[in-house]
């Protein structure tokens, strides 16, 4: 069966050049970078080279890069570390309603430990407003964390404007660039951020490795991990050298190819959006129509549910994802879609298609060819249609599921 992978925001295949350097490192550079001897020095050299590559990819200095176990650790470390070190200056943290859980839940956890939290709303495109941010800042604000691009709807946030605002007020600014890295330019000076998160497995590197950029002089300290003096006291634990080497290679390649790939992917993305909108009725594009990642497509299909679409697509070899409650492991649909004002019933019908370097125009054709009958079949089975969609609102008493029902 033909397999079409359109879930690159979930994870990416590790590219062969990255596998190669990672295997070489595993086989030949086993030394502990903290060891004085020859083997240790080999490991140290591999680590240093990777750090230079990662730094160069985002316009940073090597000493500003701290390797982590991935995006979640880097987000936790960034936010917690700033909060702990700056509590004498203030206790207010600002974030947005559409952040990844690695940021949102870290900020919420601090909210239970004496910090005051503002969660900024977003507009119907999932965009945070600079004006809302301006109004939210108080003299107690110590940290703002807003993602560069959203994982569920692809909307790119005005980080440059928001970070400039933060800097003018002496507030530290963190951005999670896990989704934007390799898709659009990510440069710490152009963005003007103090801390920035990236992850290996979203850019054709392995899982289990990521990095936190910490601008030189930033009032941050490691507050979560206790242990050895690795990463210049910023992240204890023997370094994941093969993973870090792989991250370095992945960063190097992704930046080299960014300009060409982003143009190519934008073409595929726009073809996919156009064909779905033309060939399938009652579909809405979610996220910003233009200020979105070049590889990112997200829709809500009315009257049908996301998981049943995913299962049907999987039977045809197509891999995608959904923000439906049925696929989230919780009883609520995506917090991002709900924050954008999309009603629950529509959010349950969300599908995300994220393209990557392995996708070609024929994949889009194959998707359309198969998706049209899938939607028709599921709609024929659904009791909902454009005439009766809202007749169901009074049957709330039957619903035993959602605690935060909006009806």
């Amino acid at each position: 069966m033909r397999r079409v992978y359109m879930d690159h925001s979930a994870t990416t295949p590790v590219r062969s050049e990255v596998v190669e350097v990672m295997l070489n490192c595993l086989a030949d550079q086993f030394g502990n970078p903290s060891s004085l001897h020859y083997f240790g020095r080999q490991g140290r050299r591999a680590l240093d080279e990777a750090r230079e590559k990662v730094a160069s990819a985002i316009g940073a200095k090597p000493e500003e890069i701290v390797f982590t176990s991935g995006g979640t650790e880097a987000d936790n470390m960034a936010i917690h570390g700033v909060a702990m070190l700056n509590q004498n200056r203030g206790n207010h943290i600002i974030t947005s309603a559409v952040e990844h859980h690695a940021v949102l839940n870290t900020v919420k956890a601090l909210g239970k430990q004496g910090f005051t939290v503002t969660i900024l709303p977003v507009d119907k495109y999932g965009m945070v407003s600079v004006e809302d941010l301006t109004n939210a800042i108080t003299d107690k604000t110590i940290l703002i964390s807003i993602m560069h691009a959203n994982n569920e709807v692809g909307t790119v946030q005005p980080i440059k404007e928001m970070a400039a605002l933060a800097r003018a007020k002496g507030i530290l600014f963190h951005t999670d660039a896990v989704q934007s890295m390799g898709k659009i330019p990510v440069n710490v000076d152009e963005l003007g951020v103090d801390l920035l998160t990236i992850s290996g497995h979203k850019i054709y590197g392995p899982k289990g490795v990521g990095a936190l950029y910490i601008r030189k002089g930033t009032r941050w300290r490691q507050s979560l991990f206790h242990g050895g003096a690795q990463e210049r006291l910023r992240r204890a634990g023997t370094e994941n050298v093969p993973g870090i080497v792989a991250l370095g290679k992945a960063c190097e390649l992704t930046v080299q190819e960014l300009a060409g790939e982003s143009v190519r992917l934008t073409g595929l993305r726009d073809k996919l959006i156009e064909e779905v909108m033309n060939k399938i009725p009652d579909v809405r594009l979610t996220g910003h129509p233009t200020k979105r990642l070049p590889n990112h497509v997200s829709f809500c299909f009315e009257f049908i549910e996301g998981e049943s679409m995913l299962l049907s697509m999987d039977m045809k070899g197509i891999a995608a994802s959904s923000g439906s409650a049925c696929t989230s492991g919780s009883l609520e649909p995506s917090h991002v879609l709900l924050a954008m004002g999309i009603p629950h019933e529509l959010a349950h019908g969300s599908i995300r298609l994220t393209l990557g370097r392995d996708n070609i125009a024929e994949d889009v054709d194959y998707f359309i060819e198969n998706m049209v009958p899938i939607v028709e079949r599921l709609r024929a089975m659904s009791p909902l249609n454009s005439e009766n969609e809202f007749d169901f609102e009074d049957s709330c008493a039957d619903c035993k599921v959602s605690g935060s029902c909006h009806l």
Partner: protein
Amino acid sequence: MYTDKVMDHFENPRNVGEISDANGIGQVGNPTCGDIMKIYLKVDNDVITDIKFKTFGCGAAIATSSMVTEMAKGKTIEEALRLSNQAVAEALDGLPPQKMHCSNLAADALHAAIENYREKQK
């Protein structure tokens, strides 16, 4: 994550559709929650002679709807009232734990349709 039986009923659902002269119609769920099941019954002499469903929901919601129609067809309404959500899930060789609560409502929809039939008979 789903059993072969669930996937079979999802891929080839039995008794999908509506019955134009149904004498019992039942519906449970709400689009807000992500699941709605609607069951149409044709009852003759207290026996379910025809049954059809329409469902908005995940794979488990569609499979349980399909299964409950198979289990209820030809049964008396007394027998059909004794069918439980648990029995439907077991007939499908089980459902993932998180689906037991939210998407396993097919027997409730059947019972609602039988209630509707009984009210119409009064």
